[in-house]
């Protein structure tokens, strides 16, 4: 390239467990728009300021198409994966192609549509926690909870058998590994598509009256010929991958941040209305998509006074933008009370995360349930021993060993979701149960009642027409 700078530092730079590479801060302060050297020796612009990053991501004169000359690749593995990716997925398409494909999915991921998943997500969270608690007083939280939940959710939404999770989890991880030999992500992608291809065939042969997203894509796009089979495959693959790795890492890292900031954890338990804010802060602070989509200029564009020429690559780092002190005072501090909603952890512009409402819903259910159920949750190993996934496209944590105090054997438990407010429990055991003034739903007055109440609680359990009350003994 003609305009190479002599001392352009090497990209990617090494990050820290809880912050992007320290060089970003320095570059932002000294030369906010400057060049870096990519692994293949080419150079690209690195943007680190919030406004500049947004300016590029929101500007359609920058392309995300890896086939375009000058597109910067962050690793050889990524280059081999993206260059030969056929057909290109949403994330790699430019308007107007992008617009056409994205529009087919917009409705599926609208808030109202996603809200319908709430009961399923809550049930799954409850069941996973039950399982964890039933098994003992410690677990690998990353694997057993953080990954399991979004996997179950996206599998349910798409209509992919949850039993096959190990298969697609492994393939997704292989695809996102930036250090692996280039053949690894390629092969993983092929295997994933072959698997999904069989699934599509099965669904087409046996349409029944399924209501999953894949079946709808088949019905509304594939059969009428709006999308080719390859395009449908690529779309499903993107959703399946995008749907679980990201959210999984966000759940694990968010949990970790709260555990290492116990006062904030307590504040959240005491005031669940903080959850919304806390989630935005987790998204900002960790910005797990730390190598978000590279761009290449399709014409000469000026950004913050610097001319970026046609054909030059740009790395507009959302992880750097989210730590810009101009927009987030004291940016390296994790603070669930701060105003963080303007973060760009879901990116910005036309490629802004399609699944953000789903991700937010999952996170909000997790963080309104997790510490309520397990207030004693804590790290089982020192923080320094944790291993982070610095080398993956999506930042995260490989394993998060947690422990908690084994719960006191309770005499009974209540499944609030079933309650219909009949009040028969109150009739049988008025010292233990009451009804909420507003909605009539059951309230437990005493969850560790004296023995003389036990018979009344048994009676309440038998009378309750919705079988909400379980005697655990």
């Amino acid at each position: 390239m003609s305009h190479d700078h002599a001392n352009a530092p090497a990209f990617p730079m090494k990050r820290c467990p809880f912050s992007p590479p320290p060089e970003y801060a320095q570059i932002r302060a000294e030369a906010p728009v400057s060049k870096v050297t990519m692994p293949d020796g080419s150079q690209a612009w690195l943007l680190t300021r919030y406004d500049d990053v947004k300016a590029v991501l929101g500007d359609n004169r920058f392309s995300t198409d890896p086939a375009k000359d000058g597109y910067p690749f962050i690793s050889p593995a990524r280059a081999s994966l993206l260059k030969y990716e056929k057909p290109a997925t949403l994330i790699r398409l430019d308007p107007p192609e992008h617009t056409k494909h994205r529009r087919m999915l917009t409705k599926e991921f609208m808030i109202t549509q996603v809200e319908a998943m709430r009961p399923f997500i809550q049930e799954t969270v409850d069941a996973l926690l039950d399982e964890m608690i039933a098994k003992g007083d410690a677990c690998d939280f990353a694997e057993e909870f953080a990954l399991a939940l979004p996997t179950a959710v996206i599998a349910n939404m798409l209509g992919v058998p949850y039993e096959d999770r190990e298969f697609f989890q492994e393939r997704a991880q292989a695809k996102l590994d930036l250090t692996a030999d280039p053949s690894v992500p390629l092969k993983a992608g092929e295997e994933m598509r072959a698997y999904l291809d069989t699934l599509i065939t099965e669904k087409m042969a046996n349409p029944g009256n399924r209501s999953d997203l894949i079946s709808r894509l088949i019905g509304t796009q594939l059969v009428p010929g709006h999308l080719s089979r390859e395009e449908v495959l690529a779309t499903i693959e993107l959703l399946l991958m995008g749907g679980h790795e990201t959210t999984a890492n966000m759940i694990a890292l968010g949990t970790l941040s709260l555990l290492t900031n116990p006062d904030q954890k307590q504040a959240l338990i005491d005031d669940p209305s903080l959850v919304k804010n806390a989630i935005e802060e987790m998204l900002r602070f960790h910005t797990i998509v730390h190598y978000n989509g590279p761009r290449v200029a399709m014409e000469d564009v000026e950004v913050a006074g610097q001319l970026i020429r046609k054909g030059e690559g740009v790395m507009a780092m959302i992880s750097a933008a989210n730590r810009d002190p101009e927009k987030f005072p004291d940016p390296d501090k994790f603070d669930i009370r701060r105003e963080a909603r303007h973060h760009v952890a879901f990116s910005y512009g036309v490629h802004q995360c399609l699944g953000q409402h789903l991700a937010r819903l999952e996170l909000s259910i997790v963080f309104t349930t997790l510490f309520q159920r397990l207030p004693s949750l804590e790290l089982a190993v020192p923080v320094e021993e944790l291993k982070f996934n610095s080398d993956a496209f999506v930042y995260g944590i490989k394993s998060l060993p947690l422990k908690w105090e084994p719960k006191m054997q309770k005499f009974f438990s209540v499944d609030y979701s079933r309650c219909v407010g009949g009040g028969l429990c109150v009739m049988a055991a008025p010292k233990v149960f009451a009804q909420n003034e507003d909605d009539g739903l059951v309230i437990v007055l005493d969850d560790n009642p004296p023995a003389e109440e036990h018979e009344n609680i048994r009676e309440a359990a038998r009378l309750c027409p919705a079988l909400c009350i379980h005697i655990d003994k």
Partner: protein
Amino acid sequence: MADDGIVVVGTGQAAFQLVGFLRDEGYAGTIRLVGDEAHLPYQRPPLSKAFMNGDCEIDSLFFQSREHFQKRDIELHLGARVTRIDRASRFVETATGVRLPYSHLVLATGARNRNLPGLDKPYPWLVNLRGLDDAGNMRERLGGAREVVVVGAGFLGLEFAAVAAKKGLAVTVIEAGPTLMGRAISAPVAAAFRRHHEALGVRFLLGTTLAALDEPAPGRCRVVTREGEVIEADLLISSIGVQPNVELAQDAGLRCENGIVVDAFLNTEDPAISAIGDCAAFESRFSLGLCRIESVQNAMDQARCLARTLTGNRAPYDAAPWFWSDQGGLKLQIAGLSHGADQCVIRGDAQTLSFSAYLFRAGRLVAVESVARPADHMAARRLLNAGVEVQPQQAQDLNVDLKSLLPVAEPLAAQPV
């Protein structure tokens, strides 16, 4: 005359609650509970919900153990069908010829499912969901089934359809009427539930009936609709409504009109005979003429009211009816009786799955149907009980706290709900 105590025919919710309340109220005489089912009294609502879904086992359905009845000195006659009432000599007779004398007789005979017309013989794949045995049988069959047909889009049929669809079965619901839960529910609520069920994968064939039903292969059923659509399935659930068990009363010369007719004190024309629960037809300030209600609330509250009356605290039955249905996690709660309603306003957004429909008859609020809005439901129950006037504009205005229309904010625990 010797006191022969109380005989209760039926061992359902109404009968079970009645005998408990009688003892609670201090009734010391003989109590005989006579029912034709072989099981101890049990809960019906979970049969089409938690039990069908496999969330609970049979054990958790029974109200009480055998010892409990012994302890409370309640005689249980299970598997005993009462075939005759002799009003003159005051006894009932069972199918095996046993005679049980009474001073007061309570009929809590409930209702039974209507049979599908035109069936030539019983088929193993055809289930009528009413009792524990039906439910056990159905749950077992559900395990091996892939396709099911539900005939009748009433509450039970839909609850079952949701369970089956969530299990991944292909479910087709055939309904003669144009909407879901037709007679009982307003159009916006029916439409919301339809969207919910369709999102679960349930397919609806509305406005059609069965033209033919047969067995193309052993264990398979084939349904042909009036339009000629052919559907094959492994299981067919019939839930086309129920009819009250009135024959016993009718044969004894008591007035029956879609139910055993009782007065405000739940008494038949014979002062020694009362009827409660699903089998009783009565008038109240909430109904237009005679009504018969199939709900846990009605069985409970009538049992409580009658127990008080029989122990000297005579009071008319006057509780606002309420009912709930849980269809695949989405809850419908209904307060009041909507028949004859001529105006419907919505609180919230009817395009979502969380809103309430307020039904008015000649300008008076008569019923509220709440979809996942328990607070609206609770307020409605209180408003109806208190007979408070509510304007349609107030009902649909989210800025009006309907509870504030109540005369005094009584604490919830103080009123029987």
